[in-house]
């Protein structure tokens, strides 16, 4: 029974981790930019959900429809106005740029929302389902379904749409994509916009489950990083595999060694993967 509960928890958390990591992985893979502001994007999305709920009574699952377009514009504008100016520079330059962006965004959020933790509490509460002793809170179930839906939507966009194909083409061979008439800088901006949408939406889903504070942005960022290393950079399926693996390790680890050591365990695994299998579980060239 305990095993079933740990597994179901890991499944829920794993899909959320995948959702957190997927935008990060896309931006890293396509633009070769390690977006250190990704964690703050997630927190901003969570605040968006909190605010929409408490100010207008808009439930988080509807809030996605508002947050997603806003984050696309936000991400697109950042890439167009700031990052595209230095995109050709060595990776350290873009890294420093996103680090600065993260500091800025994080402190703005501390200024407006304070660093205190707050929780989006649905009223009335949605309750929980139990299947023969395994308890699943309904809000978590909703988050799971939405996380999977978002992941699947991104997969379909990248595989089936004209712009999605262009994003994959730019990732695979920038010069060849240019020869097809692809405007690489505009594709960069779209990819960064999609990365921001995934971060913002992941934040909305996290708000359903976890308390919100600007201070947790680093935790989200490191989760995204670990998932990318475990699953392998550059594919939706890799992010999903990495997310599930990370959640499983944390779940099993906290049962065996206690919650304090579970996170440590995931970082030990990160180091092992970097040494033994740096391309990750599903790592290969091409974002699919």
């Amino acid at each position, binding site marked *: 029974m305990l095993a079933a509960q740990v597994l179901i928890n890991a499944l829920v958390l794993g899909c959320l981790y995948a959702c957190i990591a997927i935008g990060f992985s896309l931006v890293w893979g396509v633009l070769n930019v390690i977006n250190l502001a990704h964690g703050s994007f997630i927190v901003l999305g969570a605040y968006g959900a909190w605010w929409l709920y408490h100010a207008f009574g808009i439930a988080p699952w509807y809030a996605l429809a508002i947050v997603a377009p806003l984050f696309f514009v936000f991400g697109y504008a950042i890439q167009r106005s700031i990052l595209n100016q230095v995109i050709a520079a060595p990776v350290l330059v873009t890294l420093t740029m996103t680090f600065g962006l993260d500091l800025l965004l994080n402190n703005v959020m501390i200024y407006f929302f304070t660093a205190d933790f707050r929780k989006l509490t649905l009223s009335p509460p949605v309750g929980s389902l139990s299947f023969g002793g395994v308890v699943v809170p309904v809000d978590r179930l909703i988050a799971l379904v939405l996380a999977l839906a978002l992941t699947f939507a991104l997969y379909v966009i990248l595989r089936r749409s004209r712009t999605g*194909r262009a994003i994959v083409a730019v990732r695979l061979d920038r010069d060849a994509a240019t020869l097809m008439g692809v405007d690489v800088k505009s594709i960069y901006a779209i990819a960064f916009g999609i990365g921001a949408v995934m971060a913002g939406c992941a934040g909305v889903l996290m708000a359903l489950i976890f308390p919100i504070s600007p201070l947790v942005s680093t935790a989200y960022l490191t989760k995204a990083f670990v998932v990318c290393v475990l699953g392998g950079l550059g594919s939706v399926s890799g992010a999903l595999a990495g997310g599930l693996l990370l959640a499983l390790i944390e779940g099993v680890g906290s049962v065996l060694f206690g919650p304090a050591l579970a996170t440590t365990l995931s970082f030990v695994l990160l180091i092992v993967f970097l040494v033994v299998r740096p391309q990750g579980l599903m790592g290969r*060239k*091409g974002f699919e």
Partner: protein
Amino acid sequence: MAKAGARAPILELAGVTAGYGEIQVLWGIDMRVRAGEITALIGSNGAGKTTLMRTLSGLLPVRSGTYRAAGIDLSAARAETILRAGIVHVPEGRRLFGAMSVEDNLLMGAYLRRGGRGEIGRDLDRVFHIFPKLYERRTQAAATLSGGEQQMCAIGRGLMSAPTLLMIDELSLGLSPLLVEQLVAALRQLNAEGVSILLVEQDVTIALDLSHSAFVMDMGRIVRSGVSSELLSDPIIRDAYLGVIED
């Protein structure tokens, strides 16, 4: 293909220079490529053929001189504009999107076209008709194709851009003679259908045999040009590029 003034140059270069950073590779290229023909560009390694192709397709900027295609000034144009003008570059080494399927690679060729599904679908059928092998492998990742199939896919992808001038860099490199023969036949057919072709080819015999006229490059300049059959019997060309020792 009915074209007004079919003999008007599809490419017209005057004093074009280009290069990478501090290194200048092209030192004033003058050339006129006639519409409706197959034109070959030959020269030894490092002569600047690939650099010229990259400049013509807009991957490298023209530093000085003028570059016109069918009367349109493209000296300062971006790759996208050049492609819209019908100048399509099939790059050296195929440069397919390896993890994408053959069909998706071909569709990438039609990226800029707004013709709608019908028109693009028709062109897809046309490519599959010219290269039936590609139809068999349409759902396979491009990286899993053999060298010859990859070249077919690269040419097919170029055709999907609806070219008036198809520029192919290194057609035969690394391919078996039989495959080269198939590709040459396909190019002849395409040319007969009205597509002008500019071919960079290290096998000078194939290049001069296939083309109507040819340009010889050396040290970043055009050093000779003329009708291919005449160049083929030119003792200097034979000596320098065909490795034939005259008696």
